[in-house]
């Protein structure tokens, strides 16, 4: 199993967004955002692309599989 780290919490904090606000931008629930940030859920590929595009970054800049 790959341990997927992400910078979602940091990126969200830089924009002073709440989890609910980020969830609104991504069209997911607040709990989904929380689960991704705490590592309980790895986003699907479409959601990962959506996250990367929202923050104007590549997927690799947001997520790290520690390979």
């Amino acid at each position, binding site marked *: 199993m790959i341990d997927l780290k992400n910078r979602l919490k940091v990126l969200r904090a830089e924009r002073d967004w709440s989890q609910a606000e980020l969830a609104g931008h991504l069209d*997911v*629930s607040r709990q989904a955002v*929380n689960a991704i940030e705490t590592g309980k*859920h790895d986003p699907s590929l479409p959601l990962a692309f959506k996250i990367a595009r929202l923050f104007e970054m590549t997927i690799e800049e947001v997520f790290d599989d520690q390979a």
Partner: protein
Amino acid sequence: MEETTLRQKYTNRFLRASEVGLLGFAYASLMSAVLDPLSVSVLTRLSVIVAVAAWGGSLIVMFLYRRTDEYTLSLWHAGTGASFIMTTLLLVFGSFFEQLFYSIFMPDRLLDRDAEFAFYFGAPMLMFAFYLGVLGKRVPTR
């Protein structure tokens, strides 16, 4: 934004249903295990009926709202996956371990009993595994 709000509402509904279902199932199971059905009060009997209804209703709600979000779907899959593993363990190994138990601890009663653990306890164990799977997926790791 309205669609997201609806999604959030349905996600909350799914999560609350999982909690209500777990509580209802746990209460009903506990009462069934410790109480003598011939001597319980009407109130206790009613409370168990309510718990079972809450448990059943919550499962329906969880099933209906499982696709609200990819997160709720992953919770549902975690629960059904755990339940499937328990099903496999019970069906494949349940009888073996039950007979092994009786052969070690109650050998004089071994021949009088059919393998009945899965029959009596299978369904509760499957449901317990389901809720354990859902709950385990919700607990944060960092």
